[in-house]
């Protein structure tokens, strides 16, 4: 019982930290561009502001548009229940890594449909590009999870985390690192980061993710933005927990937990910094150059699997 309570606390922490992580990334990007940047708690204020605003719904839209924000939020919250962040406890029996992939797919399915619902060209563009990017990155994600499954013999994220964390350095090898690299590219692809998509662009012709949110306003927009922030947080957490979870608390004791929390925060910051660096130093790729990068991610994941069998 206490385990589940702890898992709930962990989920709550993840959900609460999500906007803060986005704020930190924006602040780091600003610093690298020699700007002061918005305060790191700004996303919270933005969400609160959106919640107070009225919304305008397109008259061409159907029941799908109204349903989508809630479905996205629901799928992200359920996904957050399945991810161990600083302690190897979660509602793991509900689902494993593959279920996580499909929960994210659920959110994306609804979002892409809602984008088509308003009947605007930009929405259609965002929807079609999003489906392209997700189709090309899915094999890479699943193969990198396959590598992890090969190394640990399980796909349940909790078991993976605890097995890797308690095995010392023996499982670190080219396979794990290559799979981590492939998954990192997947983080960028799935969360609309440069070089796949620009999350802060205002030019509709360059949008993928933003274009799908174009028609939303008020509370709906708040929910969709929040879901995206949670998705980024979850992806970064999964990257650490599934591939390099050292530092996570494997036993429920106070010092272990404290250490786990601190290391988790450090890890979040580390990947946030890397993402900020990448976003500030690279340009967004043209849409039809994306297959180069995404096939590269697939090859990385495939090499990871091969390294497991060969080496």
């Amino acid at each position, binding site marked *: 019982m206490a385990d589940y309570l702890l898992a709930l606390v962990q989920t709550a922490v993840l959900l609460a930290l999500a906007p803060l992580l986005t704020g930190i990334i924006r602040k780091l990007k600003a610093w690298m561009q020699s700007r002061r940047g918005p305060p790191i708690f700004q996303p919270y204020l933005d969400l609160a502001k959106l919640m107070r605003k009225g919304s305008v719904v397109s008259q061409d839209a159907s029941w799908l548009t109204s349903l989508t924000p809630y479905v996205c939020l629901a799928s992200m919250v359920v996904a957050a229940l399945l991810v161990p962040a600083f302690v190897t406890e979660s509602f793991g029996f509900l689902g494993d890594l593959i279920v996580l992939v499909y929960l994210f797919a659920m959110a994306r399915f609804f979002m892409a449909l809602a984008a088509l619902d308003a009947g605007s060209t930009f929405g259609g563009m965002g929807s079609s590009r999003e489906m392209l990017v997700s189709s090309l990155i899915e094999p890479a994600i699943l193969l990198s999870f396959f590598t992890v499954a090969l190394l640990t013999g399980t796909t349940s994220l909790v078991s993976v985390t605890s097995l890797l964390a308690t095995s010392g350095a023996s499982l670190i*090898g*080219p396979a794990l690192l290559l799979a981590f690299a492939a998954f990192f590219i997947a983080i960028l692809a799935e969360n609309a980061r440069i070089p796949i998509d620009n999350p802060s662009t205002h030019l509709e012709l360059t949008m993928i993710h933003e274009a799908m949110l174009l028609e939303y306003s008020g509370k709906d927009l708040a929910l969709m933005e929040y879901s995206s922030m949670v998705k980024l947080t979850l992806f970064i957490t999964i990257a650490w927990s599934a591939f390099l979870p050292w530092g996570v608390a494997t036993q429920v004791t106070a010092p272990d937990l404290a250490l786990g929390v601190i290391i988790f925060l450090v890890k979040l910051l580390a990947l946030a910094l890397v993402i900020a660096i990448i976003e500030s130093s690279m340009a967004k790729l043209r849409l039809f150059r994306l*297959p180069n990068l995404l*096939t590269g991610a697939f090859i990385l994941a495939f090499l990871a699997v*091969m390294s497991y*069998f*060969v*080496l």
Partner: protein
Amino acid sequence: MAEINLNLINGLAAMVLLAAFILVATGRLRTMVRVFAWQSLALGLLAAAVAYSTGYWHIYVVAALTIVLKALIIPRIIDQIMDRIQVANDVEPSVRTPSSLLIAGGMAILAYYVAEPLIQSGETITAGALALSLAVVLIGLFIMISRKKAITQVIGLLVMENGLFMAALSLSYGMPLIVELGVFFDIMVAVLIMGVFVFRINRTFETLDTSFLRRLKD
């Protein structure tokens, strides 16, 4: 200790293969040269690690030669050639990047499939790297086939040689020192000659596109 060493060797071998893939994926000549330099560096460190764990001193010599020649001198020469003829930085592939990446992946599978029985019979500590080195050789050949510029063909040949060296390392701790020295000398001469040829090709055709060489047939 031995386990760390083994992991290190495997990691370096994987890096050599990864560098080969990056060579296939990149679209710029300067990047290709630099990645090749890093690949040779990784290979040299791999040889050093092998030498450390087996104690054969002649592998140290070979490792040092690899690093000096292939990671430092040859890239410098190629850079100078490129500066002199002011070649455009674009690699002109005849097979586009995603397809060439997938073909390179297929080569890796082929190499693994072919090398598997050999791995079982090998007794050296780097047996697993044999499949990777065969893959590197095949990918080097593929680079030579699928890119049009003359400089990329040079690099492809050098990558093949890297792969062969790694294969020799993984099977039998390198070839006898004399053979290694001979191979290195041949590589140097080959690069110098190719430099001259590239210069002449550029002067004759105003381009490095080797498909123009077909005109010599007329």
